[in-house]
């Protein structure tokens, strides 16, 4: 039995080309990985991480668990396409084995088995299963069509605007399964077999169409099916469908501990090309929902970066609030990728820069606990005074790092992409902290907190956000705030919540002084205040618009006071509301006897 017919050619060529290109890409990316990343992979391979990665591949690449969490219908759509097609391939392979045993069958033999197996005895179980899975996939295709017209049904207000290449691949994909249905049905019409789908349609065709036209139709249908597959495969490595294959190695590499950093690396390619441009990141973006900016979201950023036409205006225009990161079904490290793009576009190492830091020390006081107010806190003196009150009430000896003005923590500059220069600030501050021998570093600015924890080399120094520190004081009985009847609502600062995973401590502190009311979007889903230092593109007016939207949601809780734990959020939200906005420290200090 031969497994070749002329119509297979498009498929064979397409598949060959696709496998070659994908292999070339993977090979190149892996080869270019930094040495330590390669070692991580080697060390990780024989561990349980590999097993976990396989599990994740099944649950994410095939079942699309994370998309189900966004919207069940959307999840089903993605699953039906991916898992359905996988089942078709798998069952098709088993079917081949069932028919002719374990012997070499070329790829097209498996894929077009129905065409070649007309002379073989029918196995109705497989016919049924194959029809069932085809129906499963077709239902996904139908939903995908439907999504084009009415995305809201799947919980998406906006979908991705696709480029031409993606549209071609998408069209090919949409036609693959209807074409397969048609091809298999015509074969069934001529040679019998098939189940409720192909069998029934084939029977209907046999009744209504003559043999000769049917034979022509069969030839055309298989050619069409093969061509769709071929076209899709050729387009795949160059289109968004590259994600189908890329997500798999990404999952493994991630499990082995490979990470993106502030400098671009080969690993970024895996992340960038693992983006399916599903567009789930568009809806949570406040630049889109509040300001109507719709060409800078992660999906477009990754697309532009992948195709090498990323502009600074796009890279810059992001709050880096992390709302899209929370939703990304592929778990792409979107903020870091954006950061290292900015680094590539803007970082200019300059040895002489910040020469003025030399010998600078404006700190005051003495103590094992250091307090770093941060630039922005100096603009919210109430927070500063409150912290002073709290330290005094707790009897803490404090070293004030920057009350008289100091050097910025470096995160704003880092977020702007000038990472090398930011390192100078980090080094300066770290040296300052070491020089004064502190063991605990408290800051009331989440921006500073994040950079202290992630980028500073501070062995022997525990870095705490003031929310953590205050909670610790309360729990230790060193602070005894009086619980009142005030109703508070809490705004999660991006850098504190999503950025540093601190959600519970501020809430516990608020509960200690009053009643806490949660806004509609909270914790991981909390909104960004809009004044993020990561964004240098939007205007002041646009910042206020976002602040108003956020304040609106906070006011809707009916709380008396809006509480936050970031000086920048406080300033921003204050511009969006007429109500009272307080820092966590202020309400605690106010509740002290």
């Amino acid at each position, binding site marked *: 039995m031969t497994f070749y017919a002329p119509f297979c050619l498009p498929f064979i060529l397409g598949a060959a080309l696709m496998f070659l290109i994908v292999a070339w890409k993977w090979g190149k990316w892996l080869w270019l990985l930094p040495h330590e990343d390669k070692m991580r992979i080697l060390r990780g391979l024989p561990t349980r991480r590999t097993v976990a990665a396989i599990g994740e591949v099944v649950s994410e690449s095939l079942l699309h668990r994370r998309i189900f969490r966004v919207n069940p219908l959307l999840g089903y759509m993605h699953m039906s396409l991916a898992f359905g097609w996988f089942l078709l391939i798998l069952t098709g392979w088993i079917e081949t084995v069932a028919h002719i045993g374990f012997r070499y069958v070329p790829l097209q033999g498996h894929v077009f088995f129905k065409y070649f197996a007309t002379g073989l005895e029918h196995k109705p179980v497989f016919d049924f299963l194959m029809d069932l899975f085809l129906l499963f996939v077709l239902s996904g295709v139908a939903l995908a069509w439907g999504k084009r017209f009415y995305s809201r049904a799947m919980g998406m207000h906006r979908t991705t605007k696709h480029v031409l290449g993606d549209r071609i691949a998408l069209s090919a994909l949409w036609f693959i399964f209807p074409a397969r249905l048609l091809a298999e049905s015509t074969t069934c019409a001529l040679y019998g077999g098939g189940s409720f789908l192909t069998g029934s349609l084939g029977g209907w065709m046999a009744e209504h169409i003559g043999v000769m036209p049917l034979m022509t139709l069969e030839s055309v249908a298989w050619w069409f099916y093969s061509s769709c597959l071929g076209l899709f495969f050729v387009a795949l490595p160059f289109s968004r469908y590259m994600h189908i294959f890329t997500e798999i190695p990404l999952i493994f590499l991630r499990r082995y501990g490979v990470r993106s950093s502030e400098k671009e690396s080969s690993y970024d390619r895996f992340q960038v090309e693992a983006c399916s441009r599903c567009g789930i990141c568009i809806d949570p973006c406040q630049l889109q929902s509040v300001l109507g900016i719709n060409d800078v979201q992660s999906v477009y950023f990754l697309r532009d970066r992948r195709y090498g036409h990323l502009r600074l205006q796009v890279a810059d225009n992001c709050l880096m609030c992390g709302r899209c990161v929370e939703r990304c079904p592929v778990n792409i490290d979107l903020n870091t990728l954006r950061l290292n793009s900015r680094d590539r576009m*803007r970082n*200019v190492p300059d040895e002489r820069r910040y020469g*003025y830091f030399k010998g600078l020390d404006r700190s005051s006081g003495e103590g094992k606990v250091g307090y770093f107010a941060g630039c*922005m806190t100096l603009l919210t003196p109430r927070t500063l005074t409150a912290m002073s009150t709290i330290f005094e009430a707790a009897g803490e000896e404090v070293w004030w790092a920057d009350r008289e003005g100091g050097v*910025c923590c470096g995160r704003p500059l880092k977020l702007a992409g000038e990472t090398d*220069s930011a390192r100078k600030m980090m080094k300066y501050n770290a040296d300052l902290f070491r020089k004064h021998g502190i063991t605990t570093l408290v800051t009331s600015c989440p921006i500073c907190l994040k950079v202290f924890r992630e980028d500073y080399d501070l062995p022997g120094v525990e870095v705490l956000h003031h929310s953590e520190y205050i909670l610790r004081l309360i729990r230790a009985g060193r602070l005894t705030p009086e619980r009142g009847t005030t109703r508070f609502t809490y705004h999660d600062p991006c850098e504190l919540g999503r950025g540093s995973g601190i959600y519970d401590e501020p809430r516990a502190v608020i509960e200690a002084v009053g009643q806490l009311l949660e806004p509609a979007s909270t914790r991981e889903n909390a909104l960004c205040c809009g004044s993020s230092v990561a964004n*240098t593109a939007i205007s*002041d007016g646009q910042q206020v618009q976002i602040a108003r939207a956020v304040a609106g949601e906070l006011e809707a809780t009916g709380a008396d006071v809006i509480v936050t734990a970031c000086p*920048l959020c406080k300033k921003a939200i204050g511009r969006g509301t007429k109500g009272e906005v307080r820092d966590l420290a202020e309400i605690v200090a106010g509740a002290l006897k």
Partner: protein
Amino acid sequence: MAAIHFGYTISKPRAIDLDRNNLRKSDEILREMPELQTCIGCGACTAICTAGNLTSFNFRKVHTLVRRGEYQGAYEEMNKCMLCGKCRLVCPRGINTRGVVMLIKRKLGDF
């Protein structure tokens, strides 16, 4: 030339000469950031400036000079900025000052 050393040279004029200065980059900057033109020179940015409290960095003056086509040294001056963003919070005209710093550096540093 200068066969004789006189012990002094012709002082360079301090005047901003708008007939000689090439305003192309200044125009580009203002086209990208038209709000910069609304600066009323209040100096709040400079007063609050983290870097300005440690050095002679004067953001208001530097960007004003850049707008007049005096680019000499502006890039180096702007490099004193730590981009902390306090200035943006105090600007009464709502100018995206951090954006201005980066824009001027990009235009004058040619990257």
